[in-house]
C-alpha cells in the first residue's frame, strides 16, 4: 500500500553520524543519501532537539559511534535536485512513523552516488549540541 507523501513545503532532516561525517576535515560523505529507503525525519512532527535525542538513542551504538548532527533540506528542494539531475529521478518523501520515531519518513527511490552528492551539498548541517 502506498504511503502518504510529505508536502513540498516540509523540512526534513537526515541524521549524520561519524560514519558519514569527518569533522576533522569538514567533509560529509556522498553515501549519506546513496541507496534506497533512505531514512528522514519530519520537523513538522518533532522539533530538532527531540529528533537529535532520538538519533542519539537509536544510532549512537556502539559507544564509539556518535551522532554528530542532522542535515536539513526542504522536500521541494529535494524534488528539484532529483528532477534537474542528468539522469532525472522523481524523488518523493513518504510518511513512515515508527514506534520510536513518529516523525520518521523515507525516500523510496534508489539514489545514485552522483545524485546523493548533489543532495548532500544542498543540506544545511545542524551540529549536535
Amino acid at each position: 500500500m502506498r504511503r502518504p507523501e510529505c508536502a513540498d513545503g516540509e523540512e526534513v532532516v537526515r541524521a549524520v553520524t561519524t560514519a558519514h561525517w569527518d569533522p576533522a576535515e569538514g567533509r560529509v560523505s556522498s553515501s549519506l543519501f546513496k541507496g534506497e529507503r533512505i531514512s528522514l525525519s519530519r520537523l513538522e512532527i518533532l522539533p530538532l532537539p527531540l529528533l537529535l535525542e532520538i538519533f542519539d538513542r537509536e544510532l549512537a551504538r556502539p559507544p564509539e559511534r556518535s551522532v554528530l548532527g542532522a542535515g536539513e533540506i526542504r522536500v521541494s528542494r529535494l524534488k528539484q535536485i532529483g528532477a534537474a539531475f542528468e539522469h532525472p529521478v522523481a524523488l518523493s518523501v513518504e510518511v513512515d512513523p515508527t514506534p520510536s520515531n513518529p516523525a520518521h519518513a523515507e525516500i523510496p527511490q534508489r539514489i545514485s552516488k552522483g545524485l546523493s552528492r548533489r543532495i548532500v551539498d544542498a543540506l544545511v548541517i545542524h551540529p549536535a549540541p
Partner: protein
Amino acid sequence: MLNLTRGRLRLLRWLGRERRKPALSACARTLLGPNASARFDEFSRYRDGWDFGRGRRLTPGSATTLERFLVAHPFEIVRPSLFLTHEGFLELAWESDGARRIELEFQPDRVAYYVAADGSEQEGTIRAECVGELRAILDAEPALHP
C-alpha cells in the same frame, strides 16, 4: 556426496572470509594519515545493524581492496577522509588540484569512483585487480554534463 562436500567447502570458505578481521598494513596507514587511520579503527568496531538496523559491519574485503589501492598505487592523497557506507564498504574522499573532488568506494571485487570538478563529473566502477588503472581515470578531465 561430492556436491555435499563442495557445498561444505564453500560454506567453510565463506565463514573464513566473514570471520576475518578487517586490517590495514603500517604502510597503508601511513599513506592514509592519522585521522583516516583512526577512523578505520573506529569503523572496525561497528557491528551489523548500525544506522537504524540497516548498516552492515565493515567487510574485510573492502579493507583488502583499499590496501591494494594504497600500496600498489600511492597517489598524493592530501588529508583524506575515510567513511563507512551502509553496505559495509570503506570510502575515501579528498580534493586534488585545488577543486577536484575524488571519492572512491572500495568493494571486495571492485572500486566505485566519482570525480567532480567545476560542474563536470565522472562516475563508474573498475575491477579490484585493475586498481592501477584508476590513475589514468582520475587524472583525466571529467566528462562535461549538459
